[in-house]
């Protein structure tokens, strides 16, 4: 795990939490959209909070896909759940809202679970594949031909 990979995982967490809360905030401003009047969705998208939320969720999706390209699904998913922890901490220390003991317990459980995973390897090794062989910059020509075959 390089620093850059931890940065991508942090992006997964932050973009998910931020996008989710901005979308939710924007949707509360635009009001209810009933299933019978779906044209309300168009007005909702014009709300800046909703638009920023959608952009952040796109960023989340990009980072999530990137993380899945070099890590196991069971390694990446707990990182997305850290978003819940982040939201609760923001609610407590930035918005000064009350966080119930049960929610603190939830935070502790998620943090513990993520700690368990982070201690292990990020990718199951299948067969005899060299993990970082194609990353060497000197062998660009051969790397391309080898990469196209895989």
């Amino acid at each position, binding site marked *: 795990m390089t620093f*850059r*990979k931890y940065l991508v995982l942090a992006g997964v967490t932050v973009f*998910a939490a931020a*996008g*989710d*809360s901005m*979308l*939710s905030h*924007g*949707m*509360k401003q635009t009001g*209810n*959209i*009933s*299933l019978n009047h779906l044209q309300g969705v168009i007005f909702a998208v014009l709300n800046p909070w909703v638009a920023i*939320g*959608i952009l952040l*969720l*796109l960023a*989340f*999706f990009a980072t999530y*896909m990137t993380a*899945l*390209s*070099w890590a*196991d*699904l*069971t*390694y990446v*998913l*707990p990182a997305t*759940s850290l978003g*819940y*922890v982040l939201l*609760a901490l923001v609610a407590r220390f930035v918005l000064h809202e009350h966080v119930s003991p*049960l*929610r603190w*317990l*939830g*935070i*502790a*459980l*998620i*943090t*513990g*679970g*993520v700690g*368990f*995973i982070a*201690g*292990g390897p990020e990718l*199951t090794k*299948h067969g005899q594949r060299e993990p970082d062989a*194609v*990353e060497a*910059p000197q062998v*660009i020509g051969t*790397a*391309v031909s080898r*990469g196209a075959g895989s």
Partner: protein
Amino acid sequence: MKRFLSRLRRFITADPFPRACALGCILSPLRGYGAVANISQQHSASGSSLHVSLLYTWSAILAIVFASVVGDVLLARAMKQVGDVGALWRRAGLGVVIGRTLGNPNFLFGVTAMAVAFFSLLFALSWGDVSLVAPAAASLTFIGNAVAAKIFLHEKVDRRRWIAAGLVAAGVALLAG
């Protein structure tokens, strides 16, 4: 069936527009609990026959869990086929990364499954309460993903990861409500 699939694939790959639509569909499906919660608050207020609606709600929750587990597994498999995005980007550029991802059939089916999960979420929220649907769906998805990753992706889900999946599922159940 095979011919149908190949025709479907040709249709999807012929025109970039459906791909863009599909990409739009995944936005909320993945993380839209908070936003969607607001959409159907009105619908959950009926509550005439409690037992029937509870049955409906749990069927819809199971549908959400099933669809999002299928989606996650397909997306994970697609990205393993694409390969390390960072390395590929440095080698061949961003365009190749995006093209290879969007052209991957597993990715397209994964996105479709995510869209199905999103609409199941809408149905679940129209029958049941947010405080039941969101935590139940989120935490069951974690457990289901651990099982599916072991079976279908052959990931080494050892005791460490089982414990972690259980802890995270419990924590999400407490926090998402």
